[in-house]
């Protein structure tokens, strides 16, 4: 190192810039923008940046960026089959994120479909706090008569299968159930490999957490309410259910991760009807950003409507019963009057 002072000279460019006083982001080398700034943004912010200018759009639509965002949100999509399917999406990982990240808010009746769904791929990830505790990809065929006629149900775990989790069973009180509700998040993405569409049918946070006093199981529901028929008041809910079991003081096991479609009368729809509804949700379902508690609100609204419908049905049946009894009594009285007063 030489001795002596060192002076650094710089030039003040205040008047020279043609951007009108100040450096613009386009002066920054695009590699710097890509590797240091864009990689630090979440999906929604990256979307905003891509709509800001054509320069940022070109940089923000890089597949690798969106692939990283999708991968960190849903590790299950690193599965080779899912990777292959997403790469054939017209918008790649960017469109996949747009389909799967926001919550489903599908209230318009399903339209006529132009292609039949031969297969659905399910990509499911369950996170406890920030760590992944369960991740699975399942391919289900949807063409066979057996599937179409029997009640729709996707099960990710077999009868005897269970998955260990690091969640400690603290005690069977409401505080612990609330803790699970806050921290156990699930994402269930349905992918249509031929139509290049996807949808996330989970509410992300549980809409209900129940503890069964007899079996000791904890059942968490992640349901989304969608439109079910021609009439927009016909609603169904995609019921994603996770059942966990465990002894107090020990670790919890996940015993069941399943999905069914249930209508307002509590009936589980068959494969064919469920498929129509799910396809409609995939193709034309509106998506909205998650607002805290929204999923739970909609589920409780659904339960309320279900309860009202049940009540109406019971009232109708009671009225019918009354009418039958009245008719029977009248016939009885008329008959005996006829006999006695002949």
């Amino acid at each position, binding site marked *: *190192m*030489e001795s*002596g*002072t*060192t*002076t*650094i*000279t*710089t*030039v*003040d*460019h205040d008047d020279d810039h043609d*951007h009108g006083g*100040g*450096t*613009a*982001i*386009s*002066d*920054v*080398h695009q590699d*710097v923008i890509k590797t*240091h*700034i864009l990689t*630090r*943004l*979440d*999906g*929604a*912010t990256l*979307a*905003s*940046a*891509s*709509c*800001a*200018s*054509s*320069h*940022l*759009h070109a940089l923000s639509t890089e597949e690798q960026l969106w692939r990283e965002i999708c991968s960190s949100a849903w590790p299950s999509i690193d599965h080779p089959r899912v990777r292959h399917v997403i790469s054939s999406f017209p*918008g790649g990982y960017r*469109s996949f994120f*747009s389909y799967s*990240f*926001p919550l489903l808010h599908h209230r318009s009746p399903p339209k006529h479909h132009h292609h039949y769904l031969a297969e659905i791929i399910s990509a499911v990830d369950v996170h406890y706090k920030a760590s992944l505790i369960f991740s699975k990809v399942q391919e289900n065929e949807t063409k066979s008569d057996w599937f179409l006629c029997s009640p729709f149900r996707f099960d990710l775990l077999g009868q005897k299968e269970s998955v260990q989790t690091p969640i400690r069973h603290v005690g069977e009180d409401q505080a612990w159930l609330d803790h699970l509700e806050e921290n156990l998040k699930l994402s269930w993405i349905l992918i249509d490999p031929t139509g290049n569409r996807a949808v996330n049918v989970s509410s992300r946070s549980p809409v209900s957490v129940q503890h069964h006093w007899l079996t000791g199981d904890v059942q968490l529901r992640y349901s989304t309410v969608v439109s079910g028929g021609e009439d927009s008041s016909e609603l169904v809910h995609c019921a994603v259910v996770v059942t966990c079991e465990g002894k107090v003081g020990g670790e919890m096991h996940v015993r069941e991760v399943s999905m069914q479609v249930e209508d307002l009368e509590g009936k589980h729809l068959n494969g064919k009807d469920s498929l129509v509804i799910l396809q409609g949700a995939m193709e034309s379902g509106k*998506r*909205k*950003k998650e*607002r805290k508690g929204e999923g739970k609100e909609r589920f409780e609204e659904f339960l309320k409507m279900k309860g009202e419908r049940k009540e109406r049905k019971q009232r109708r049946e009671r009225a019918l019963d009354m009418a039958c009894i009245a008719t029977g009594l009248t016939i009885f009285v008329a008959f005996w009057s006829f006999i006695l007063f002949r």
Partner: protein
Amino acid sequence: MKFCAVKQYFDDENNNNITSGASTTMIPLPNVESHPLAILITYCKKHLKIKANNADNKKETEKEMEQYEQELLKKVMPQELTELILAANYLNFKEALDFFCRAVASAIQNKSIEFVRKFFGLESDFELGEEEKLREEFAWSFEGVDED
């Protein structure tokens, strides 16, 4: 290593065997403005000082550095961040580049398109209808953004 570009200049000088008769050396940095350079030098000095103070305790260094960075961000205008990034990139000062990019990323987190444009000094230069199509594709992401 901080200010790698400056070090490179010294290395090049040594390699060319320039004997310094003068007591001062001038290093030309035409792509760096004086204001961001001053901030970078202060940042560098502070970083070295904190590191020297907490030689064995890495956690303490990080904590103190974070506190200093928070203070620094309050004094720096958002628009100056772009200049700082340019300067840090030219000077090959990795820690500062990393820090200022992080600051930019968190400044635009969850903000509207208009905010991002204003922040970066950009204008919409899309074709007619192109912007509408993009906004439609990402309609869900524009809900619940922070106020500007």
